[in-house]
């Protein structure tokens, strides 16, 4: 017994068992870790989004401006020309004696640098803060998108960061153009909700006003899409919003008195207080509900609005309203996203690809195996055995790591089949060489493996180095390819060098004195 089960054979059998056990879920679609098919194989939508981090910084300056304004008002300091620019917040103080108070307010805010010239202030974020904002913008965008997609009910969406400011979204199972459109809206809609005060003083002249003039008043001109989606022209609003969407706690679909779907939202306690204070102080004026830079409604405030809830109406369909509620609920995107790469594969093409690769894989495999057995006889059968286990191992390891099988990955497997055979060929050739030189079977096997292993190790390690680098620095297709070849190389070392050797050691007592070299190794000695 001890002679049958040697250390190498046990390793090989373990590898085989392991390979088969962990391949089963992938091959038969049962429970357990499975290889997921890449979108090029199952069809779907693949989006690479760039987070416009500079916009996140701009937005942060806007909210910094509004909080400085709020604090100043509380301390009864009058600020003049308070403005958020792309690269800072500026304001003047009217009364130089207020400088102390303002300095104190500013000193409590972290991560800013105050540049002061007499009574003019220019406030910018320091480098660390900017880095932080950018980092947060990306990670927040990722969790927001994830949130939205989860609620949208798509199967297994994947949202991952790529590089510094890119996000890769993979949506398997998106089939029609409509679905694609909807998903895309859901992902890329910034859902930035703001409440802004209408500048009633100057609004009458909004149609003749230039953007520059509006800026002088501290205002912005925004398009007014109105209740039922029709164009109402433009409206002039105070640039610094009363409230930002980050105070939002919930949003859901409701129906107004005309049974039209609307989105109702609630605010947190701080938001509710600001909302209540503002509405109480501005009765008779209008307040605009702004979503992603468009004004949806601008109702006149009739009384103080407590409780902190409101609604957005915009002639939505039920589906649109529910998507909007999802986007609002899952939070605003901290920065707009731009689609910089989009790849979509229809399900029929995916199936064709699977079929084509399967044919290539199987026919390549049959060809190689047929050749090995014809050429090397029993040694070829043993090599085939190793090859099969090799394939199982690749599938198993990929399943465990949750790797994705793509078309280039399939190509990698096909190639691995070719290269794994190389190891067996080298071993068998060395074996034959030793036999021809007149060594006995036992010695031939020892010599064959000793000599072959060195070359196989050297060549495999170089290939492995290459695949590791390709995996580390490559993208998409190259990565997929690197994974399968890398795993294939390791599997081939285990199966070819260790596994088959163990096999020979186990059967050695049987073939040690064989006269039939042709049956075992496919050679005749004269």
């Amino acid at each position, binding site marked *: 017994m001890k002679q049958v089960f040697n250390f190498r054979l046990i390793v090989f059998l373990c590898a085989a068992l392991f390979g088969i056990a962990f391949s089963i879920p992938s091959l038969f679609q049962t429970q357990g870790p499975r290889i997921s098919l890449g979108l090029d194989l199952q069809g779907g939508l693949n989006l690479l989004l760039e987070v416009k981090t500079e916009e996140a910084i701009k937005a942060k300056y806007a909210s910094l401006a509004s909080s400085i304004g709020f604090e100043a008002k509380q301390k009864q300091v009058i600020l003049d020309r308070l403005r958020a620019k792309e690269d800072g917040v500026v304001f003047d103080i009217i009364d130089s004696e207020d400088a102390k108070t303002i300095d104190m307010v500013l000193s409590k805010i972290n991560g800013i640098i105050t540049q002061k010239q007499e009574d003019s202030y220019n406030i910018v974020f320091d480098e660390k803060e900017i880095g932080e904002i950018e980092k947060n913008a990306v990670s927040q965008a990722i969790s927001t998108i994830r949130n939205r997609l989860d609620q949208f009910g798509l199967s297994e969406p994947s949202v991952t960061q790529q590089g510094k400011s890119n996000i890769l979204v993979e949506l398997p199972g998106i089939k029609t153009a409509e679905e694609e459109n909807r998903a895309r809206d859901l992902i890329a809609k910034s859902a930035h909700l703001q409440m802004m005060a209408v500048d009633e003083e100057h609004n009458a002249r909004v149609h003749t006003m230039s953007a520059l003039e509006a800026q002088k008043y501290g205002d912005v001109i925004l398009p007014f899409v109105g209740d039922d989606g029709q164009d109402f022209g433009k409206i002039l609003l105070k640039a610094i919003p009363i409230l930002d969407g980050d105070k939002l706690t919930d949003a859901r679909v409701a129906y107004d008195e005309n049974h039209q779907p609307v989105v109702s939202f609630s605010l947190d306690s701080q938001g509710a207080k600001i909302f209540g204070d503002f509405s109480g102080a501005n009765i008779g004026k209008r307040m605009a509900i702004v979503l992603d830079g468009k004004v949806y409604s601008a109702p006149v405030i009739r009384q103080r609005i407590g409780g902190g809830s409101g609604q957005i109406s915009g002639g939505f369909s039920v589906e649109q309203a529910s998507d909007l509620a999802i986007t609002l609920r899952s939070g605003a995107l901290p920065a707009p996203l731009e689609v910089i790469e989009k790849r*979509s594969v229809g399900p029929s093409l995916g199936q064709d690809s699977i079929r084509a*690769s399967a044919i*290539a894989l199987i026919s*390549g495999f049959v060809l190689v195996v047929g050749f090995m057995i014809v050429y090397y006889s029993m040694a070829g059968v043993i090599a085939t055995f190793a090859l099969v286990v090799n394939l199982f191992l690749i599938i198993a390891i990929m399943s465990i790591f949750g790797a994705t099988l793509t078309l280039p990955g399939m190509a990698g497997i096909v190639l691995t089949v070719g290269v794994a055979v190389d190891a067996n060929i080298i071993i068998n050739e060395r074996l034959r060489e030793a036999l021809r030189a007149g060594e006995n079977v036992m010695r031939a096997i020892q010599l064959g493996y000793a000599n072959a292993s060195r070359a196989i190790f050297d*060549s495999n390690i170089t290939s492995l180095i290459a695949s590791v680098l390709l995996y580390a620095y*490559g993208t998409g297709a190259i990565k997929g390819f690197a994974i399968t070849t890398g795993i294939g190389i390791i599997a081939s070392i285990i199966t070819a060098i260790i596994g088959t050797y163990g096999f020979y050691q186990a059967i050695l007592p049987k073939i040690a004195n064989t006269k039939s070299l042709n049956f075992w190794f496919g050679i005749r000695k004269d």
Partner: protein
Amino acid sequence: MEIFKKVKIFDFVAYSKYGLIVSVFLTLGAFALFFFKGFTPGIDFAGGSSAQIRYEETAPIIEIREILDTTEGFKGSQVSEYGAKQEVQIKIPYNNLLSGKNLNVVLGDLLKDTGKFEIRKLDSVGPKVGNELKQKGILSLVLATLAMMLYVSFRYEWRFALASIVALVHDVIITAAFVIIFNIDLNLEVVAALLTLIGYSINDTIIIFDRIREKMLSNKSNDIIEVINEAISHTLSRTLLTSLTVFFVVLTLYLFGGENIIGFSLPMLIGVVFGTYSSMFVAPKLAILFGFNIQEYHEKEMKKAKKREEKKRLREMYENGRV
């Protein structure tokens, strides 16, 4: 079954002279192609969009061309048959007018009168992504090559490392030239093929170098030419068998893998041939040309062996408690 029953020693080094001439000639030709014709960058690198559409009937290519030519944003699009009569590929160069739009819908609308069809694949790549890819592609290529060279230097000798890398670059350059000849767009699949070729080519070369090293250490022959000839001859059956199996595997991929993977399978098919050829006829000869000196090598190895011996002796002495 046996093909090479007895190992016959061929004079590979002598043939290598012609091999080198052929290689220099082919490499120059390849450079001429790079220079005068150049690659057609695919959308992965140049940016733009590529759509694959299947019609139920034969695809009305001329009609599609006319529609696209007269539509703003689609000027300069290329329409071609793709694998089958029903299938077309449309390549749309990057255009600001189209960025941000949902091409699926736009194309669907544009072509809705041309017959029943299904958009099977639609890829859009922004120009920035293409640039990043280019940088990453080149970086991974250079790093992979350097790392392999380091490893070969460590295991063999720097002249061998240099020779193997030159042979490898030669393979890649010639294969890349064929990419131009067969009018394949330079996309990620092509890059993947070239990267695989690097792995394959160095693998082949190392197997032969390993034999050369083994011969150098076992025979005390001081004739490097003799050693190389013996080494290549002894590995000949393995080289041919492996190359043929890999060739056939790639061939099945080429024949059955379909149009979508041709950017990978065709360059690989050519690369395997040149990878095999260069490891037999280019790399060993180059090592000689780079001034590899077998006597020096022997002396070095001898010194190393002596040192090992010395250490062993010391350890034995130590273990026997004599130190």
